[in-house]
């Protein structure tokens, strides 16, 4: 591992910092049955949702939740990065921009209307992933993140081992794989272009993948768009479907610029 880790017998200093999002990822981990036991293994320096005295000290491990949507957030993020040995982009907003980044695609006149009403602040920037501004050591995808992945990550981290990211699409984990693929049934499923690691939870519950774990770097978006066109979806509908979670500038996928 490239960073100097916490000393033996010392509790790693950990922080949870949250930018623009719904905080569902933080809540997700609070829903873990033995979360307090897990947190006890750390020296929790920063966790606004849980404690009142929060210090931006040096962190061995920092979880960054939410998209970055203002200049002041960029500044704070950069300060935090400097102080942190290992940074986890925590959840889809942080890894890919997620739902907050949908606002980047608002039509100009629509935005103007909001501006007219409330004065668009100079502080505002296009909402985007953490990696647009600082280096990310681990991407924990998911809207929300998966509790099991978080627990596995913590266990591996405490053993000072490198944690592997899932680099395969949802399709590989799909129970409909090779049999009754949603696309064959004319259901617009995004599993093929989405980060796996969720065990195709939605599809197991008879719901098509909506790409909540964000775009896979290796995905063929042009092919997916073509497939959706063949299903009879309009250009606008396809854009809307993709922009929910697949709007990461970093990946150069930019479906909004493709057409």
């Amino acid at each position: 591992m490239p960073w100097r880790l916490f000393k033996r017998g010392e509790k790693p200093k950990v922080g949870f910092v949250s930018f623009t999002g719904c905080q569902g990822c933080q809540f997700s981990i609070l829903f873990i049955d033995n979360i307090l036991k897990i947190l006890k293994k750390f020296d929790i320096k920063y966790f606004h949702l849980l404690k009142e005295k929060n210090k931006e000290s040096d962190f061995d491990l920092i979880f960054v939740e939410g998209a970055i949507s203002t200049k002041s957030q960029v500044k704070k993020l950069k300060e935090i990065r400097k102080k942190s040995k290992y940074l986890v982009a925590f959840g889809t907003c942080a890894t890919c921009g997620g739902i907050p980044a949908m606002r980047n695609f608002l039509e100009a006149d629509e935005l103007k209307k909001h501006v007219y009403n409330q004065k668009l602040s100079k502080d505002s920037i296009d909402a985007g992933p953490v990696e647009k501004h600082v280096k990310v050591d681990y991407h924990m995808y998911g809207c929300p993140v998966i509790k099991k992945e978080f627990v596995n990550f913590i266990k591996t981290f405490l053993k000072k081992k490198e944690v592997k990211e899932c680099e395969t699409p949802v399709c590989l984990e799909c129970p409909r794989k090779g049999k009754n693929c949603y696309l064959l049934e004319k259901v617009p499923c995004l599993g093929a272009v989405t980060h796996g690691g969720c065990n195709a939870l939605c599809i197991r519950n008879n719901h098509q993948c909506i790409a909540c774990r964000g775009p896979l770097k290796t995905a063929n978006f042009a092919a997916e768009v073509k497939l959706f066109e063949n299903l009879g979806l309009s250009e606008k509908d396809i854009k809307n479907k993709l922009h929910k979670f697949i709007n990461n500038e970093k990946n150069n996928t930019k479906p909004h610029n493709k057409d």
Partner: protein
Amino acid sequence: MKKITLNHITKIEGHAKLNLEIEKGKVKTCELSIFEGSRFFEGILKTQDYSELPDITSRICGICSIFHTIASIRTVESAFNIKVSEQTDLLRELLLIGGMIQSHILHLYFLVLPDYHGCKNALELAAKDKSLIRRALEIKKVSNLIVNTIGAREIHPISAIIGGFTRLPEEKELKKILKELKKCKREAEQTVKIFQNLKYPDFDFKSDTFALTDGSYFYSDKIISCEGKACIPTNDYEKHFKEYFKEGSTAEFAKTDDGSYRVGALARLMLNKHLLSEKSKSFVKQIKSPNNPFMNNVAQAIETYEGFEQAINILENLKIKEEKLPEIKVKATTGVSALEAPRGILFHKYKFDKKGKCTFANITTPTTQNLQNIEDAIRVYVPELLKQNFNEEQIKLEIEKLIRAYDPCISCSTHFLEFNFKKD
């Protein structure tokens, strides 16, 4: 002049700060400002197909995603006049009860209780009193089980869709929930006792309170009631509850012509006593000061218990059968719906064109409605604290306790306004 700033109010959902200026024992300025980055939800919903709305609005808030999902689904259904089965309604009610318990328990034990035990946070409290947190975790586990079984995920549910469910729970899954609920009901009752016995500040702050009242305790949507006033049909909500913006804050606020008002557990409990089980009714009788916002914590505890009662009741009579989802015929129309979320009434309103594309959306969250009341309460509360010679640190703690009693959910209330930071 004394200036108190709470720069980042902790142990609440989201990012908020408070500016307070006190002059000669009187509050000169009291501004609750929200510095959550805005996400323009109402803007991004426009042009979306009706079928996309529940998945997007769920992401307004992590702690009440279930409520946004169901509100969104029901708004679409009301627009297109889609009738769902009784079974769907019962499963939705169960899901909402599970979500309500989840939210209340997390708030009560993790965010509120440490204050009253002189602990800084839940971790410290867990170290000090294991049995307290064990109880919380057990109740949390049951509520998670309900939400997971019915909705397929604890946050941002998957299987609840327009018209019904993509996956119905199996009988043995429901039996398991019922068993766990019965086993854990005693813990819920204990929770009521714990929160009844805390020493709350004595604070009389009378406000108008509103709650939905036409159906069952956790599942109403048509009529809004307020003590001593005429009922309001949900469809007319915008005429009565007016939203506005404040400079320096990214949140929306709301009030009626009579000023600020309160929604949430305490409002529901006082207005809807008649819909409660006998035991909960007897708990409510012990609330001697319903005007005290701190009693909201007791109300949340009672609702947790009531959730157990009602969920058990539903499950004992529920026989799951396979059903076909109703057909959806889109048209140019408007849909409005309301439901009781953990923090109070949640409104969704959409307009659609003839192809079923959203052309307008307005979402009024409980915290939007409570924010002005929180500010007003602080204005009245601070002079009382000054009279008792509280120092600055004590005042800060008391204000945070008061804010936390309302259980504000800041992400929810900041879906619209742009970030606009005001420097001191």
